[in-house]
């Protein structure tokens, strides 16, 4: 039975809970014998601490082991908190992109997706993206959560959503196999499908990845169509550097609001771009805390790096729907102070390590 203290887990969408109170309530929920999921109740027995007693706030999430590797095999029904009872409203089972091995699976419940899409839609209001216009998403659907997240956001924002499906695992396989021509052909196929929609439908919002945006930008006719129709471009799923962002804003799609998300299946959603930054500032992503929190650490010591320095991103997702704490991601980012009222870190300039020294010694004289 939910106690009074658990009600903070159902806080209205436009209110922010006290972070530590929220985390404590979540521990009660996920580790209560009647409310917790079979997975977490089982895992709790192996922990050398008691989450309900010892995890008093966001910082204590670091006590948890990173369990995301187990999500490759665990039966997904075991991930559903029992507290939802028989009428748990499941949106779907979603999987990671499989970059670091076999896909990991999570279950997404309706209350979380609603909270997520409410926040995204409110951001779009803030950017001046009109409600009631239709969307085109050139993005992974199927097992990937981003498709559902965007569809939910479009619906909440009053739009119909057209989809061009992208299989990121296949693209990764082609790229890692050195099959540049096949990769190219696949991306051209995506662009062609997007073009059919852009030509015939009144698309007000476009959602896709930075590489796809760049590929669309190879086609003057599509640049023109997007310029005529699209009011907002939401991007995510890959890194975008500050130079590209500035070019897209100033030269390629000057009439569109560009809005970045840094998403991940293991946080059941994404962090969103801080608005109002200048062209020379890197793109900063603020997670919606305390539901999603980040820290940026030195991968060797596990300790936070100083603000302004690059480190590896640790992610926590804590909602009624799911608990995925202390997940060391492969992404690197610059640690940035969070906005007023938020906890943990914000991140900037997310991406792989900058590769510079290609001047390794080679045979031949070049």
């Amino acid at each position, binding site marked *: 039975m939910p106690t009074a203290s658990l009600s903070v887990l159902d806080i209205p969408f436009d209110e922010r809970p006290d972070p530590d109170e929220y985390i404590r309530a979540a521990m009660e929920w996920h580790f209560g014998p009647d409310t917790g999921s079979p997975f977490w109740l089982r895992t709790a027995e192996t922990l050398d601490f008691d989450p309900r007693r010892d995890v008093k706030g966001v910082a204590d999430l670091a006590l948890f082991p990173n369990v995301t590797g187990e999500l490759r095999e665990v039966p997904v029904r075991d991930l559903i908190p029992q507290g939802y009872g028989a009428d748990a409203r499941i949106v779907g089972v979603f999987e990671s992109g499989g970059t670091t091995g076999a896909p990991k699976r999570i279950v997404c419940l309706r209350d979380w997706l609603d909270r997520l899409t409410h926040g995204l839609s409110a951001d779009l209001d803030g950017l001046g993206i009109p409600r009631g216009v239709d969307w085109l998403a050139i993005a992974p659907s199927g097992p990937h959560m981003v498709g559902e997240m965007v569809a939910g956001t479009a619906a909440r924002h009053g739009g119909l959503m057209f989809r061009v499906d992208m299989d990121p695992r296949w693209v990764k396989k082609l790229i890692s196999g050195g099959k540049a021509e096949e990769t190219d052909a696949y991306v051209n196929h995506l662009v062609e499908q997007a073009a059919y929609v852009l030509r015939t439908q009144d698309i007000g919002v476009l959602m896709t990845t930075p590489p796809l945006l760049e590929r669309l930008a190879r086609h003057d006719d599509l640049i023109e169509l997007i310029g005529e129709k699209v009011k907002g471009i939401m991007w995510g799923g890959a890194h975008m550097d500050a130079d590209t962002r500035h*070019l897209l804003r100033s030269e390629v799609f000057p009439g569109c609001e560009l809005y970045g998300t840094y998403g991940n299946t293991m946080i059941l959603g994404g962090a969103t771009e801080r608005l109002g930054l200048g062209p020379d500032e890197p793109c900063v992503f603020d997670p919606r805390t305390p539901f999603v929190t980040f820290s940026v650490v030195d991968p060797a010591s596990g300790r936070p790096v100083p603000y302004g320095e690059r480190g590896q991103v640790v992610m926590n997702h804590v909602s009624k729907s799911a608990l995925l704490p202390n997940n060391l991601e492969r992404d690197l980012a610059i640690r940035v102070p969070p906005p007023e009222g938020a906890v943990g870190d914000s991140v900037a300039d997310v991406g792989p390590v900058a590769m510079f020294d290609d001047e390794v010694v080679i045979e031949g004289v070049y």
Partner: protein
Amino acid sequence: MDFLDALGPKGPYRSRHRLTVSDVTGVPMAELSLVPRLFVTRALAALRAADTLPLEERLAALKRAGELFATGTVAGMSAEAYEGAVCRMSGSPLANVRIAVEAIRLSATDAYRNVQAARPVGAVGDWRDPYARSGTAVWIRRGDVFAVHAAGNHPAVHALWLEALALGYRVAVRPSRREPLTPYRLVSALRAAGFGPDQVVLLPTDHDAAGEILHGADLSMVYGGQEVIDRYAADPAVLPNGPGRSKILITADREWRDHLDVVVDSIARHGGTACVNATAVLVEGDPAPVAEALAERLAALPSLPPQDERAVLPVHPLEVARGFERLLLGKAAGARAWLGGDGVVDDLGDGSAALRPAVFQLDDPRDPRLGVELSFPCVWVAPWTREAGVAALRDSLVVTAITGDEALLDGLLAEPSIKNLYIGDHPTHWIAPGLPHDAYLGEFLMRTKAVIRG
């Protein structure tokens, strides 16, 4: 010099993502703007949309640009300051840089005359030519946009692509990040001399965006090691420039002592950094005396900072130099060392090191190490036999054949993988205006079209 901006179709572009380019001692010299892939896409689209300058205009502009590059002040930098800076940045000896500056000036001045040497004798340059009344071939471009992935081993690599501009191509150059200064100065000079920013661009990029340059151009030229050659071997739109593996053959009917100057010069000129430097010397008979004499002569070359007037050896940051040394000693294991057997790094004490010459002797003319080309004076000496024949000289940019055997010379000339054949006392680096380097670039850039007019 604080910033080396990209030179885009709308003018200089200073990106947020920049690379610090240092001199060989580690002192920062400039911040090089690295443009993102999207910038490349758009720059190449602008080149494609541009018109080619009329022939007379572009030739005049080329000539002006060549003079300006060689003697003028370009982007605030005098010719003298440029020569010093490029030495310190690339580690190329000053004398080497001066050779390159002259090569670029001459190429710009004579580009049109030089490229005409590649035109098939049956072709004319314009449909207005009187020959077209009775039918003729006209020499036309295979495309409009030419891209160059340039090398940093020698500034003179930038002489060649000027021919593409002369032929009316719009040109995009991706500079080497080790030595971006020469193409920066050259593109700046071309712009100052009358080429529009949508005619010739400089696009420094990291690896991520490098492929986009090839993708966006009609035809490209890339420089690199064997892996580059292999990657683009099947792509008709890419002209790869790989290792030169130039060789010298001395047969028993010639006295090798009479040709020692030419052999030493072939190995060491340009600091040994060019594809036309001799990588191997094959001797009919005992190669040991030849190797010994080469080692003695090459050992006398001084180690000096690159900007010294007397410098002849390439200089690198110490760690890079040590990398070359490790590579060399690994390859040379088991070979007889005449020079450099205990290392080639000469620490200049300021964070940089000169790479000293190396001479190794191999026993078998089929030893694959005869093709190991490194960018300093490094030579493999081996015996040559009649049985080894032409096969031992395959895959060479230049073969200097010091022999009186005409049947052998016929064989060397006929061998397709030997790109240039110099007979007798000519160094492998010999070149003259109007002659092909690795065939004429014009053969790659142009084709013929039949035309008849009424």
